[in-house]
């Protein structure tokens, strides 16, 4: 049993992004990251010198490290943590920051990250020939095995999609719903890289096959930009500019022999995992927040590839295993539907900022700041990844 009830003890009090998101921005990662930092400070009503913690990630292929932020912005951090820029650490960056402020190791922690593109700023760095994780004995968590030509997360996830679609009889038209819905949402979001670029079923079907069943539009974007969230205690949040957004429930990044393939729900039998009938285990994030999937007003999920949505819905129990592909049809996941998903446009159409952009959107939704894409009366919002970590935020 926990010695400390984490629910609602910490909050997000400020959010920001680089001034632009784009495929290639021709700006330094540090410039982008400072834009996000300043925007988040203004949003929170804080000053640089209030900030004393940083929880950042490095990579993809080159972001900004904690030392650059200390030296080049003149911020004095007394608590720093740095991991690798992967979506798998996004919610954990929030939950560890929450614990850090509650423990008094820092007062205000930045969760700050920059993504660059190998065709953009990343061109200055040696190009990694395929994911080096694919060279491990276990391959990569996406399922990559480099010496057999399975060397991109997309190809590996098309294996997940094939397995699922054959097992449950899912169709290409059903798969299209993810990308088309998120594109609709992006067209309500001026920051989205695919804003003003509508897509219909015909456009989707005509996009080129890459690793069937995946077409181009089953993939997320590759891009540049930065995000920042500021985490502090509920007590300190009372004196700040805006109503806080509470961190109400969390569960960490799991891994194990049968919970390995990033973009597959357990039980599908990918990579070396066993195939079995999946039953939703108790989810700590719901228990901590005191909610169930029925209480979730909007869902944000890691949509690097289109079937990830089915995996998330089934993993957490929004629908029974094998039914995600039909459950999402009929407008259910659109703004105004039963469970709006990725109202910012997601990684597919707003941009791939490792999910931190969805965390920013969650905060803005819970403050009723999203204008034409606002989820009406949003009070409980969940971030959920296909591999099992999650965070639940609630309105302050």
């Amino acid at each position, binding site marked *: 049993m926990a010695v400390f009830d984490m629910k609602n003890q910490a909050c997000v009090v400020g959010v920001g992004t680089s001034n632009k998101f784009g495929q290639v921005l021709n700006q330094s990662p540090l410039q982008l990251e400072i834009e996000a930092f300043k925007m988040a400070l203004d949003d929170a009503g804080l000053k640089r010198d209030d900030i004393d913690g940083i929880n950042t990630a490095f990579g993809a292929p080159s972001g900004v490290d904690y030392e650059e932020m200390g030296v080049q912005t003149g911020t004095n951090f007394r608590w720093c943590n740095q991991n690798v820029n992967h979506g798998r650490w996004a919610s954990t960056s929030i939950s560890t920051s929450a614990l850090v402020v509650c423990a008094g190791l820092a007062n205000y922690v930045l969760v700050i990250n920059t993504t660059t593109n190998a065709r953009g700023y990343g061109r200055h760095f040696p190009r990694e*020939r395929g994911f080096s994780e694919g060279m491990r*004995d276990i*391959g990569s968590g996406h399922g990559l095995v480099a010496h057999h030509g399975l060397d991109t997360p997309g190809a590996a996830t098309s*294996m997940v999609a*094939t*397995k699922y679609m054959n097992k449950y009889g899912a169709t290409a038209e059903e798969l299209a719903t993810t990308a088309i819905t998120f594109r609709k949402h992006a067209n309500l979001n001026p920051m989205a890289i695919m804003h003003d670029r509508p897509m219909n079923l015909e456009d989707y079907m005509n996009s080129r*096959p890459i690793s*069937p069943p995946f077409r181009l539009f089953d993939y997320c974007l590759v891009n540049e930009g930065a995000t920042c969230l500021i985490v502090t205690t509920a007590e300190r949040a009372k004196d700040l500019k805006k109503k806080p957004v509470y961190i109400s429930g969390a569960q960490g990044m799991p891994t194990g022999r049968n919970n390995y393939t990033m973009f597959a729900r357990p039980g599908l039998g990918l990579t*070396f995992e066993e195939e079995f009938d999946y039953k939703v285990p108790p989810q700590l994030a719901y228990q901590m927040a005191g909610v169930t999937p029925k209480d979730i007003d909007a869902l944000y999920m890691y949509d690097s590839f289109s079937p990830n949505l089915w995996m998330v819905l089934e993993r957490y129990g929004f629908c029974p295993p094998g039914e995600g592909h039909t459950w999402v049809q009929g407008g259910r996941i659109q703004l105004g539907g039963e469970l709006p998903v990725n109202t910012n446009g997601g990684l597919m159409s707003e941009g791939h900022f490792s999910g931190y952009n969805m965390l920013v959107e969650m905060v803005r939704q819970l403050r009723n700041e999203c204008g034409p894409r606002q989820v009406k009366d949003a009070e409980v919002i969940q971030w959920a990844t296909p591999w099992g970590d999650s965070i639940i935020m609630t309105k302050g």
Partner: protein
Amino acid sequence: MTTHEAPAKYDKPLPVIHPDNKPYWDSIKAHQVKMQKCSDCGTVRFPVSPVCYKCFSWNHTWVPLSGKGKVGSWIVVAQATGNPVWSKDVPYNVALVDLEEGPRVTSNILQVNNDDIYTGMPVEAIYDDVTPEVSLLKFKPAAGATRR
């Protein structure tokens, strides 16, 4: 002084061979599949590990497998978007093969038309001697592997 080596003919990624997995790669080079079998609980394991993932025991022997299995799932890559060395091979397949003895491996099915691969297709091991030092475990359709 710089020495110039002739470029290797095989330009694709090769496995990283180290003390833990060397017996596996030695067996493939000898055109046999050997994997670790736990001496305590009998589990045949893959990927290679110093300990049994079921009972955590160090004790194991390297045992020969039949090389027979079934296709669990497969894909056909249409465009190589990772390492460009794969571009000349598209369309090529990658398959999950469930081996008779339990482990599942990721590999390629050779000597097959990609359109003829199906879930449950029986396959058997073949060995691709890609360099003088390294062979890869691949598969071909087994006798009787006609389409459903």
